[in-house]
């Protein structure tokens, strides 16, 4: 059933944002560890440590890339599909009638990139349905659409 839908992915800006966040953490870490290694041991040790951490960061970046690419959602007639995960693949089906409320959050960094996260809440705590990295306009559209559909198809507990 996965391929029959037209999936919408989060904005490509999400990946840019995550990469910048990663770089902002990685650069100082690499320099301090490298310098520390150089002062305590030798210049070679410092360089080696810096290389190791840089390799880890690059691997991390690949993982981020895959994780964000794996994330997608599809609006069907009666329910919303959300797919995510690289190692553990998850596919959630959330009926519109079951939605209790929808909220849109945007942290300071997300706002800088004009992004927002849409979260759907059902009465079940386990159905964790969120879509990160939507453009603000798309997030607002999705929120309104979901709210309208939820109202139209609402069902009691």
């Amino acid at each position, binding site marked *: *059933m996965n391929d029959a839908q037209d999936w919408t992915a989060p904005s490509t800006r999400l990946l840019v944002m995550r990469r910048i966040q990663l770089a902002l953490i990685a650069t100082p870490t690499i320099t301090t560890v490298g310098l520390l290694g150089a002062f305590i041991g030798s210049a070679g040790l410092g360089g080696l440590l810096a290389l190791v951490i840089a390799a880890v960061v690059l691997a991390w970046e690949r993982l981020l890339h895959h994780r964000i690419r794996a994330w997608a959602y599809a609006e069907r007639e009666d329910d919303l599909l959300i797919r995510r995960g690289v190692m553990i693949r998850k*596919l*959630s089906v959330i*009926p519109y009638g079951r939605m209790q409320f929808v909220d849109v959050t945007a942290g300071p960094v997300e706002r800088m990139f004009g992004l927002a996260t849409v979260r759907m809440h059902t009465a*079940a*705590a386990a*159905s964790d349905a969120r879509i990160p990295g939507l453009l603000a306009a798309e997030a607002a559209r999705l929120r309104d659409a979901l709210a309208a559909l939820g109202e139209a198809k609402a069902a009691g507990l």
Partner: protein
Amino acid sequence: MNSADEHSAMDGTAIQRLTAGPSRAEASAMAGPAGEQAGEQAGERSDGQPIAGLAGGWRRLHPLSPLVRAGRHLVVLATLLLSGAVTHQQDSGGQGRYWDLAVVAVVVVIGVISWLVTRWQVDNGTLRIETGLLRRSSQRYPLSQIQAIDLVESGLARVLGLAELHLRMAASGGSAGRLACLRKADAEILRARLLALAHGVAEDSPPPPEQLLVALSTRRLATSILLSGQGVVTIGATVVFAAVAVAIPAAIGALGGAVGLLIGMLTAAWRRFNSGFELTVSVAADGLHLRSGAIQTATETIPFGRVQAVQLVEPLLWRPLRWCRLEVEVAGRRVRNENRPEGRQLRAVLPVGDHGQAAFLLSQLIPAAPTADRRAPARARWKAPLRYRYLAWGDSKTCIVTTNGRVRRVTRWVPLEKVQSIRRVQGPLQRMFGLATIHLDTAGRRIQAELTDRDVEEADHQLAVIPGRCRAARRTARLPRPFHGQ
């Protein structure tokens, strides 16, 4: 336990099916001690004349309710004052006594004020409770949204002949309404009236007839608690503790922490015992009625339409006795003392019983419940060696059942109309073996029904089919049974 013993224990809890008709408890509640009902909160006499129906204006709670609400804090205060009094006597008395009196006076005044400023009223199908002196708070509970009303009597309240009413609303969060305390007879009448209003019938219509289904024997309950994992650990800890204390008396001081732990474990065991003590389950038109309790007693209703999921647990140690436990998840949470939400415990409709009883109660909660007959594919053994033998699922038109568990088998029934969302999850190991798991999420977080380790094709097929079936089930879901319909 020899086999003769076992046999008698099994017979101890026979299912009793009585013919329909008002149960004794309800009948006596309605007849009531008519002579005692005077004063501002008088309810209804046995002749059915509403003396002070719900229509009147504001009312107060029972004057002794602050005493009951204070509960254990009062015990702490009394101990403090007593120990204070003893020390004061030792050092020449005098001023200390006045301080004690002052503390008592302040506590009493606070109690009286809290009683004076708390009042309640039923108006326009809404229960309003107002409380607070400096920070007034006014709560409104639309009666039409009441799920159930529990009647709770704590130990102290029972001594004083009082009872509290806990309203259970549909919302899972927020504070639930609590009327603490009323005279017991009044509380029972008020409960019946509020429930009648909640179901949209005249407030003084008689409560629906009840039918007793199961009564739990104390002996079996005690045995089951001793044989539970918790019980075994508690016994082991007690034995070890006693042995150490006897062997090395000098070490007792060092065991201070262990004593606290032990007391905690014993309290937990006691709580389980209390909540199952003399439990009776009866069925009425509005749901299952549960009554139980040794010191603190409670009466609660589990409405039929509100059961989100049912779970049957067969613990390892109970297996030789062929016992099991039946638990339900109901939307909205129960409140215990002091508005503390119920912890991780589910409501056990049957804390311990044999499979016949469990099946009988299950048939009341979920008519025509299916059995799990589709086993997981054989290769799932490599991925889940311990669980494999229990992995199965089955379905009927309106319900899905799954079994799971490593050492104890847990069977879960989820009515399709209660499914909130459906998830397909596949980890790396499952991908290797071509397996996938389908989760059925229901309201509440304690019952997790999952079709574990199914063949990928089957899982995908079910993921495509189940949402539609849930939708159909929601549309045709039976309306709540009429409350007073005969």
